C-alpha cells in the first residue's frame, strides 16, 4: 500500500473524530431546529429528541468511516507480516479471502450502529423485519427514562400492544420498545433477550398464546437471525436438536461466523429494492385460504403436544430464569387467538398451556402472570385475521397493559 494512501487512511478517522468533537453538538442543534419535526415524524415515536438522534448518527458516521479506513490498513499490515507465507502464485486467493474477512468485520462493526440500519430502511411496512428490530434495538440504548420495558414475542405481541400509546401515557416513567420478531416461539424469546443492548431492562412484556408452544416449525427466521455458537449447548440441552433441522442451525451458525451472510436479506432488500421481498410475502398471503374457518382448521391440525412443546416449555422456563437473573420483571399475558382458531384447536392444548404458565408463575415471583380471565375479552369481531387483532382491540388491550404497568410501577416505588 502506498505511503500517501496509508497517511490518508489514518488522517481520515482522526479528522472525523476531531470534527465530531467540535461540531457534533452545534450541528445537531441546528439540524434539530430545522428538521426536528420531520425527523420525529420519520422516527414514528421511536425516540423523542431529534438533536440527540442527529448527534449520535454523526458519531455513527465517524465509527463507519474509521472502520472503513482502518480495516484496509490492518489488512495491509497483516499481508506484509505474512508476505512470504502464501506462494506468490496463490496470492490472489489470500488477497480475496483477506478482503472477504475485512468486509465481514466491517459488517460486524456497521451492524452496531443505528445509522447503518437506517440506511437499510426501505419504508414503513416494506423494511425487513431484522432491520426494523435492529433500528429499534439501537435506539433503545439512547433512551433516557427511569425505567425501560420491552415488548418481546411474535407479531401477535405487536398487534396487541401499541408501544406509542404506552409511551404517550407512561413514557416519562417507563419507556417501552417493541421488539417483536415474526414467527417467534418461546425459544426465540431467549435469543431476542440475548440480543437486547447492554441497558437495564426493567420489564419484559409478552403476549403468549398456543402458537408459542404447540405449533411446529422445522425452521424459523428467529433462529436464522439470532442464533449463535454461544447458544448451541443450551439449545441441545433444551431438546431443540430434536425439532429443528440441521440445515437451519447450519445457516444460523454460518450467519454468526459471517456477519455479511446474516445481513444478506436486509442488504438485498436495500440493493434490489423491497419489491422482491413484498412479492414473496404477497405470494404467501395469496396461498392462504380466504375462508378463515377453513384456514383455522388447516392451521389447527399442525398444533400438537409433543417434542416441540416440551422444547418450547423448557425454553420458556429458561427464558423466565434469565429474566429473573437480569432483574427484569416478566409480564406474561395468557393470550389467545381469534376464537375461530381457538375453537379449532385441541382444547387440551389450552388447558396444558395455562397450567404450565400458572405453574411457572407460582414458582417464580418474578413473573407477573396476567391470566386469561384478567385480560380484556376478545371476540371474532376484534380480529383482522386468525392471529392479529384490529386497531380498536389493540387500543383496548394497550390501555389495559398501561394500567398494569402503572400498578407495577407504583408497587416498585412502594417497594423502594
Amino acid at each position, binding site marked *: 500500500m502506498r505511503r500517501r494512501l496509508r497517511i490518508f487512511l489514518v488522517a481520515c478517522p482522526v479528522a472525523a473524530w476531531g470534527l465530531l468533537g467540535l461540531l457534533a453538538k452545534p450541528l445537531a442543534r441546528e439540524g434539530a431546529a430545522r428538521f426536528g419535526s420531520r425527523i420525529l415524524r420519520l422516527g414514528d415515536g421511536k425516540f423523542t429528541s431529534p438533536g440527540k438522534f442527529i448527534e449520535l448518527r454523526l458519531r455513527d458516521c465517524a465509527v463507519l468511516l474509521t472502520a472503513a479506513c482502518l480495516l484496509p490498513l490492518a489488512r495491509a499490515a497483516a499481508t506484509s507480516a505474512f508476505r512470504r507465507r502464501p506462494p506468490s*502464485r496463490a*496470492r*490472489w*486467493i489470500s*488477497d*480475496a479471502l483477506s*478482503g*472477504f474477512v475485512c*468486509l465481514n468485520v466491517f459488517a460486524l462493526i456497521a451492524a452496531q450502529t443505528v445509522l447503518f440500519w437506517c440506511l437499510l430502511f426501505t419504508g414503513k411496512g416494506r423494511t425487513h423485519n431484522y432491520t426494523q428490530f435492529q433500528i429499534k434495538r439501537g435506539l433503545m440504548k439512547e433512551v433516557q427514562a427511569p425505567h425501560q420495558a420491552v415488548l418481546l414475542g411474535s407479531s401477535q405481541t405487536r398487534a396487541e400492544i401499541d408501544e406509542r400509546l404506552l409511551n404517550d401515557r407512561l413514557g416519562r416513567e417507563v419507556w417501552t420498545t417493541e421488539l417483536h420478531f415474526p414467527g417467534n416461539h418461546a425459544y426465540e424469546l431467549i435469543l431476542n433477550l440475548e440480543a437486547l443492548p447492554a441497558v437495564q431492562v426493567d420489564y419484559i412484556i409478552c403476549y403468549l398464546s398456543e402458537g408459542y408452544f404447540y405449533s411446529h416449525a422445522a425452521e424459523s427466521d428467529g433462529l436464522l437471525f439470532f442464533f449463535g455458537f454461544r447458544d448451541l449447548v443450551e439449545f441441545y440441552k433444551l431438546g431443540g436438536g430434536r425439532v429443528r433441522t440441521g*440445515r437451519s442451525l*447450519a*445457516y444460523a451458525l*454460518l450467519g454468526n461466523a*459471517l456477519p*455479511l*451472510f446474516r*445481513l*444478506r436479506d436486509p*442488504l*438485498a432488500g436495500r*440493493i*434490489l*429494492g*423491497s*419489491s*422482491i421481498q413484498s*412479492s*414473496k410475502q*404477497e*405470494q404467501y398471503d*395469496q*396461498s392462504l385460504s380466504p375462508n378463515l374457518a377453513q384456514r383455522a382448521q388447516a392451521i389447527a391440525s399442525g398444533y400438537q403436544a409433543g417434542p416441540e412443546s416440551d422444547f418450547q416449555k423448557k425454553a420458556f422456563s429458561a427464558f423466565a430464569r434469565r429474566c429473573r437473573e437480569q432483574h427484569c420483571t416478566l409480564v406474561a399475558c395468557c393470550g389467545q387467538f381469534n376464537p375461530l382458531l381457538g375453537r379449532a384447536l385441541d382444547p387440551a392444548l389450552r388447558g396444558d398451556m395455562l397450567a404450565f404458565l400458572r405453574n411457572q408463575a407460582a414458582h417464580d415471583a418474578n413473573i407477573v402472570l396476567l391470566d386469561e380471565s384478567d385480560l380484556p375479552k376478545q371476540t371474532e369481531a376484534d380480529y383482522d385475521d386468525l392471529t392479529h387483532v384490529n386497531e380498536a382491540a389493540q387500543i383496548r388491550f394497550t390501555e389495559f397493559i398501561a394500567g398494569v404497568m402503572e400498578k407495577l410501577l407504583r408497587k416498585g416505588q412502594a417497594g423502594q
Partner: protein
Amino acid sequence: MVFNSLAFLVFLAVVLVLYYRLGHRGQNLMLVGASYFFYGWWDYRFLGLLLFTSLFDYVCALKIEAQTHLPRRKMFLAFSIMVNMGVLGIFKYFNFFASSLQAALGSLGLHPSFPTLHVILPVGISFYTFLSMSYTIDVYRGELKATRNPLDFMLYVAFFPHLVAGPIVRASYLLPQCQRPRVIKRAELENGIWLILMGYVKKVVIADRLAQIVDWSFSKPLPPFDNVNTWIVIYAFAFQIYGDFAGYSDIARGVSKLMGFDLVVNFRAPYLVSSPSLFWRHWHISLSTWLRDYLYVSMGGNRQGRWQTYRNLMVTMLLGGLWHGAGLAYVLWGLYHGLLLAAHRWWSEFWRQPALPTASETAGGRGKLKRIVLVLVFFHITCVGWLLFRAGGLPKGVSQGAVVKSYLEAMLNFGGMHGLSALILPVGLLGGISLFFQFKNERMNEFSIWSDSAKGVAVLGALATITVLGVFEGAQFIYFQF
C-alpha cells in the same frame, strides 16, 4: 443433493480430499461410489435404474462392436435405443401421451379409459439416458471403441457433476478422460474455482432472486400488470432460466476441473445473438449438438431439399421441446423454435444471406448498430418463447392457454402503461449482471490468465455477491425436472 446446498459443499470437500489421495483406479471407483451416493441422496430407489441403464448400454455396445454382420449390429442398436426410450417413456411420457390420446379420442366421441402410472420422475433421467444412448450410437457408427471396463463406463454415465442436469457430454469426449489418469494443472484448478464461483452467482443470486418475482407473478391467475410492464416479468424469467441452467453447467464444469476432467462448454452468450440458429449455438449447446448429430442429421439434415430441411428442423425442435417436459406447452415451445429456425433459414435463402453473420457484417459501425437492433429484437422473440416454456411449469388445473393469452395481451398493451414497475430495479440489476457474464463470456473462461489483482478482486466480488445477494433456501434447479 443440489449444488446450492451445504450438504453438497461438505460432500464435495470429502470427495476432493479422497480424490487427491487416490490413484487412478481408486479415483474412478471412489467417484462411481460418490456419484451413486450423490444421486441416491435424492431418492435411493432410482439407483437401480441408473445402474440398469449403464450396464445395459455397456453390454449393448460390446455386442454391437463384436458383430460384423450389419443387421445384427442394427438389431443391438435398436434394442439399446428401444430400452432407453422405453425407460424415458414409462417414467416421463406415459401419462402425458395417455391423457393426450384420451383427450383426442374424447373429442371424437370415444371415451376409453387409459391407466395412469403413479411414478415419480427420476431426477435427470433425460440427461443420463441421452448420455448413455449416445455411447451405443457412437459405437455403432464406428466413431468410438466400446470400453471393456464397466467401471469406466459407469463413471462416464454417473459422474456426479453432470449426472442430473448436464452438460450432455458425448462418450467420445468424456470416456477417454475416465480411462486415462488425469493430470490436474494449476491453470485448470484456477479456472475451476472461478467457474464454481461464477456458477453460484448465476444460480443463487441471479436465478433464485429472480425466481421470487417470477413465482409471485405466475402464482396469480392473471398477469400482475395489465400493460407492457408484464415484459419485466418475462425478462425476469429469461434471466432466471439462464442463471439457473448456465449456473449449473458452470458449477459442473468447475467441479470437474478440480478433478482434472473437462466438460464441454454448454452456454456462451445466448441473449446477445441475433438469430435463432445462433441462439442454439449458444444455449444448451450440448443438447442442441446432440439433437443435431443424432436426430437432425439422421433424418437427412439439410441434404434432401428445402422442404425436407424445414420438416427436419421442426421435428427436431419439437422433440427437443418434448425432451424438456411432458406437456403441451413444451411441445409448443419446441415448435415455436422450430418455426423460428425454419423461417430464419427461408429468410436467409430468400435474401441469399449466410445463416450466420460474417465478420465483415459485424465489424463496422453500421454493422454493429444493425446487430444491436437484431439482438434486441431476437431477445424479445426468445422471451415470447420463454412465456410458453414457463406456462409448462404451471400447477395442474391452471389453464396454460389462458395464462399465455392474458400475458401476451398485457405485453402488447402499450397504451395502459403509467410508469415503470419497481421490479425494473432488481430485474435490471440482475439481468445486467447476467448480460455482463455473457458479454465477457470468452474472458470468463480464461480466468487463469488474468492478472493476480484482477483475480483477487473478481473472487472477492463473487464471494461478497453470493453472500449478500444469494438465496440459500436450497431451491431446485429448473432443469432437474427434465
